[in-house]
Structures are given as structure tokens and as C-alpha cells.
């Protein structure tokens, strides 16, 4: 795959992202190491949305005037781009949502659950893959079970056979953890879940942006991800699911676009994916996401992944060289991505983040919406540096230098 693309030239790529030239204050250039929270957007994406809004904007579907047909073609064309980006055989398997959180809530709302049923999630989940299932279990009387974690930040699968049983209806877990960086073995867990007939949902919010993900071979029945973390805009996310699964599930939100026939006596629903897309969809945002996957495909996801792996290794080396720093999550490159959490002995992450910001270095601090995992490791919060395709060694060097200053300031 990689061979078809131009060599990966970070310096050139950075020119596509105007924000990277910004100074956070006079004389202090931005060093953006918070891409796991949200990625920056290349000009191609901003231009596609601008062009949509300036030339083609109309509401989609049911319109027969020129703009409406153009807007519909652009919107449905974006669906096809996203489908082929993740290897979906049928673009009807791609449901546009407002973000990854909504995608997971959608599934948690419509999957039938009953008292005695069980849902299995993991202790490293993002709140967006915890709370929807807590609420679903409260509503239905089902029970929530948790896959635990090992000390070095991996799923503890030693008791998987007990956790996943005939009672299990859903197994939902993160592909790549936003807190720990861990990449989980989807196939292993999915195989076990499918043995008992459970639905497998993978939170791919942090994997689809960073590595080639092929839903045809992944092993999941449903996958959620979010536009703003993959060079696309805010306001759009994706739920991919097997066509037959989508078809058998009841609708989520009701309204325009998602209906077939509405009468006072009752309504029938449109075919998928529109059944799950009530109301005017995020049209300009779908166009932006389509441009984002074009951008990523042009670079090649293999190349993006290789670049990030190389840089993550460099980052880990740098972090390990800082006195009193402990990485929370896998300390080596084995099955991990470019989001690296750490704590500095005796210095609170808030202070670390604030002082780094003084050097222009943007990292995220806090529990990263993964509080159960923080509690598991006995820490209230971490600092997290996270990379993307436009990150370079200079970014990492600035972080390591900044951490030195933090230590001396609070030393």
C-alpha cells in the first residue's frame, strides 16, 4: 500500500495545517501534542467545507432543484468515501452521527437487553463507552461486567472465559485506549464474544485516525469513531455496523429523513442508514470528513501509522530519560499507539500542563474521560502527550525540554 504514495514528508505535511504556524503568545510557537483530544484540520478539509457552503449548500434528500441534488450527491458521496476508507463493503453500513459518543449511545439504546442479560466492557474505556451501558443496564435490568487491567496497562484477559458467557449480549471495548495508548486484541475478544452470540462493538475513536482499520476483517459487528480526531471537523461521527444488524435494530431518534410513511396512526421507517439519521444531518461536516479520509488515503494509512510508531518510540525514549517520570500504560512499543500518559513524581499534572503551556507545549491533563482506569492505577490524573501525522521530533524535543523546566521550577 505505502508504495503507491509519495514518501512521508512531515515538513511538507505540516504546511497543510495552518494552525501549526501559530504562536500561543508572542514569540512562543505552538507545539501541539493533544491530538488524541482533537486533531488539527488540513486546508483540504477546510476548503471542501467552505466550497460546500459557498457553492452547493442545500438540504439533502427529497429536493429536486440543482443545489439539493448537488448537496445530496456530496453527502452520500462522503458516505461512500468513509465506507471505502474502513473497508465496508456497503456504504449503507455507514451511519453518520454527531460524534463517536452518539454512535455508541445509539447502539446502547437500540440493542435489546433484558434482566439477566450481561454487557461486558473494560476498565480502560472512555466514559462514552461506559455511561451509555450503565444507563442501558439501569433501564433494562441487565448487568454490567468489567474486564480488568494489568499493571502495565493491558487488558487482563485471564478470566475472559468466565466474564463472557451465554448471558452476554454485548461486548464493547476500545481498540486503542486514549489514556494508556494500549492497542487491544480485537480478534481474540471478538472470537470469544461470537462464540456466545454476543454483539461486538469496538470504540475505534483512537484507532481509525491512526492505523489502517478494515471492518471486513476486524471481527467487530459495530465500530464507532469521530470526525474531529481524524483531520475532519467537529459535529460528525460514524457508526459502522453490519448491514443485517442495522436492519434488525429499531430506530433511535425520530423525525425528518428517518421515516418512510408518517400517519397519525403511526409511522414506518426508512431503510438503513437513513433510519438512524433523523433530522437534517451534518452535511457540511460529512463533506469535510469525506475530504479528511481523502487526505488520509492520499498519505496512506500505513505510512501514517509507520510515522507515528517511529515518533512514539522517540517520545517514549525521551520520556524515560526524564527523572522521576512514570509512564502510565505500556512502557514499550509493543501494541501501543501514540498517546502516552505519564506522571511526574510530586508534581501535579495540572502544574505540569500549565507550565508546559508556558513553553507553548499543549498536552492534556486530567483523567481523560477514563476515570475508572485512573482509579485502577491509583492516580487522580495524568499528563498526556499524543501524536498525529503532523507531529515531528521537534515537537517531542520541545516537550522533553519543557518537562526539564517543569522539574526545575517545582524542584
Amino acid at each position, binding site marked *: 500500500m505505502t508504495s503507491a504514495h509519495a514518501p512521508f514528508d512531515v515538513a511538507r505535511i505540516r504546511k497543510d495545517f495552518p494552525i501549526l504556524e501559530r504562536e500561543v503568545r508572542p514569540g512562543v510557537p505552538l507545539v501541539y501534542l493533544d491530538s488524541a483530544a482533537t486533531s488539527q484540520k488540513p486546508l483540504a478539509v477546510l476548503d471542501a467545507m467552505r466550497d460546500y457552503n459557498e457553492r452547493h449548500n442545500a438540504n439533502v434528500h427529497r429536493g429536486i432543484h440543482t443545489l439539493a441534488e448537488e448537496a445530496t450527491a456530496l453527502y452520500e458521496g462522503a458516505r461512500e468515501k468513509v465506507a471505502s476508507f474502513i473497508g465496508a463493503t456497503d456504504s449503507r453500513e455507514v451511519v453518520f452521527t454527531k460524534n463517536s459518543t452518539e454512535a455508541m449511545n445509539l447502539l446502547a439504546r437500540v440493542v435489546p437487553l433484558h434482566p439477566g442479560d450481561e454487557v461486558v466492557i473494560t476498565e480502560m474505556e472512555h466514559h462514552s463507552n461506559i455511561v451509555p451501558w450503565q444507563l442501558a443496564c439501569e433501564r433494562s435490568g441487565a448487568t454490567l461486567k468489567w474486564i480488568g487491567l494489568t499493571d502495565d496497562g493491558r487488558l487482563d484477559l485471564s478470566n475472559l472465559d468466565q466474564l463472557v458467557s451465554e448471558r452476554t449480549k454485548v461486548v464493547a471495548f476500545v481498540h486503542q485506549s486514549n489514556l494508556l495508548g494500549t492497542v487491544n486484541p480485537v480478534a481474540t475478544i471478538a472470537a470469544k464474544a461470537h462464540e456466545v452470540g454476543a454483539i461486538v462493538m469496538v470504540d475505534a475513536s483512537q484507532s481509525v485516525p491512526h492505523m489502517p482499520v478494515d471492518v471486513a476483517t476486524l471481527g467487530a459487528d459495530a465500530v464507532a469513531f469521530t470526525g474531529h480526531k481524524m483531520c475532519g471537523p467537529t459535529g460528525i461521527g460514524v457508526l459502522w455496523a453490519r448491514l443485517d444488524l442495522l436492519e434488525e435494530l429499531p430506530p433511535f431518534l425520530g423525525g425528518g429523513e428517518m421515516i418512510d410513511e408518517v400517519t397519525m396512526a403511526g409511522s414506518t421507517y426508512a431503510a438503513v442508514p437513513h433510519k438512524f439519521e433523523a433530522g437534517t444531518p451534518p452535511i457540511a461536516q460529512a463533506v469535510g470528513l469525506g475530504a479528511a479520509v481523502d487526505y488520509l488515503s492520499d498519505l496512506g494509512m500505513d505510512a501514517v501509522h509507520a510515522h507515528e510508531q517511529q515518533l512514539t518510540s522517540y517520545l517514549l525514549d525521551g520520556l524515560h530519560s526524564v527523572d522521576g517520570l512514570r509512564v502510565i500504560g505500556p512502557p514499550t512499543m509493543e501494541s501501543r499507539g501514540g498517546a502516552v500518559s505519564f506522571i511526574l513524581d510530586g508534581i501535579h499534572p*495540572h502544574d505540569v500542563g*500549565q507550565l508546559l503551556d508556558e513553553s507553548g507545549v499543549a498536552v492534556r491533563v486530567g483523567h481523560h474521560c477514563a476515570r475508572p482506569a485512573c482509579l485502577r492505577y491509583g492516580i487522580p490524573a495524568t499528563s498526556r502527550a499524543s501524536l498525529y501525522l503532523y507531529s515531528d521530533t521537534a515537537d517531542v524535543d520541545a516537550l522533553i525540554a519543557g518537562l526539564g523546566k517543569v522539574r526545575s*521550577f517545582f524542584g
Partner: protein
Amino acid sequence: MSAPQLESLYQEIILDHYRKPHHRGLRDPYEAEVHHLNPTCGDEITLRVHLDGETVADVSYEGHGCSISQASASVMTDLVIGKPIGEATAVHEEFLRLMQSKGELEPDEDVLEDAVAFAGVSRYPARIKCALLAWMAWKDATAQAVDQTGGSE
């Protein structure tokens, strides 16, 4: 580190209190103990208030958190211990006003003493909660202690 913003946040007074906190540790006697948490960042404090009639006789605490929250607890105890409840409450209100000022208020040094060092914090929305944690815990505990002791007013 010489960026002016930073200095205005991490004043030397704040760092001093952070490194050598005053009145830290939980002590007896007390009429009320509260536990407050800032779930966003995990800052935590357990705080006890001992009243002697109308007077804040002692405030003791344990907790962990960032330099701002820790220093703020230390400064707060300096300010309220020994004061009549009404006066301590007035200081609390002045501090609250300062935190809401977005850096636009000239703090009243006669009332706030060392706490004027926190003026810069009000320019950092994400940090204001850190600075307020101990104060909110004190307010809560004091109200409970007043109830406990039969209401002093």
C-alpha cells in the same frame, strides 16, 4: 521561566505555601468534617472546622492536588483561623469575587493578605476551581458546624 503570565499565576507566595503548607493535618476537636472533590482534575480535600462560639477556632485538612489548590488551602487557613465567623465569611466572599474577576479586579490586600497572590489565577478559567476547592469545603464545613453547635447567630 520568565513569561509574565506564568509569574502572575505561580507567584512566589503560592509556591511557598505549596512547599510548606500551614495548618496541614487533621486535628481534634472539630464539629464538622467534609470531603470535597474536583472530579475534573481529581483534587481532593478533607477538612475539619472547630468553632469556639462565634469564632473559627481551628481549621485542619488533608488532601492532594495541584500547587494552586494546595497553596490555596494553606492561605485560607491562615486567613480564617481566629476570626469571627462573619468576618471569615466576608474574606471568603472577597476571595470569590477575586476569582470571578477575570483578572480585572485590584484585590484588597487588607482583607485578603497572602491570598492576593491568587489574583492571576482568575485569568485561567480551568484553574479557578482549584483555588476555590478549600474555600468551598471550609464554607460547607462551617455551615454544618454552626448547625451542629445550635446556630451561633
